[in-house]
């Protein structure tokens, strides 16, 4: 399940179920989303294909570090949330 918030919700929709290949990583899932949606690609990745600084991620409601955890493999039933910097209060 992919959840998106704020600007990313406007591009991706609030939530969607995605079929994952066995052993797919967070990075592969993001690239699949980018492939299917040029606006998301533009918003989330820079020209060299790196994830932009302001893209924040949670897996199962825990923040993950885009520098270290993009290679994490996702399991059936995992929830990935994609959102821009926090701005509550």
């Amino acid at each position, binding site marked *: 399940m992919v959840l998106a918030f704020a600007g990313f919700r406007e591009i991706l929709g609030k939530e969607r179920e995605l079929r994952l290949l066995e052993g797919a990583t967070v990075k592969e899932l993001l690239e699949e989303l980018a492939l299917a949606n040029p606006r998301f690609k533009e918003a989330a990745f820079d020209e060299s294909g790196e994830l932009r600084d302001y893209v924040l991620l949670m897996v199962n409601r825990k923040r993950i570090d885009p520098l270290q955890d993009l290679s994490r493999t996702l399991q059936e039933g995992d929830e990935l949330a994609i959102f821009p*910097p926090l701005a509550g209060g």
Partner: protein
Amino acid sequence: MIEITEAEISLDEMIRRARSKDAGAMVTFLGTVRDDGMEGLEVEAFREAAQAELEAIREEAMSRFHLMAAEVVHRTGSLAVGESIVAIVCSAAHREEAFSGCRYIIEELKKRAPLWKKEMGEKGERWVGRT
């Protein structure tokens, strides 16, 4: 109590819940929609994650600053200029703790709670915080 809600905030009720005969000080924070040349705000939450994060922040503040009570309500949805976005009420035996606890909660909320604001203006819309 932690609440993330579309409904208007009743500070009165929050204060009533936070009152206790062992408290000598109560500090409240209200974040309100400021007129930066905009017409209003849209507030969006990752509700379940925000609720959990605010509960963790509340627990930290309660034990760090020996609070008697800590109440947090954050609104979502459409807000007009002047309306309250967030309300925090902390009570403690002494004022030092009540001030520090209230400050802690708003600072951590801004850093850690998955909430977003979009400014709605005549010239269009803009997500706050996005570079």
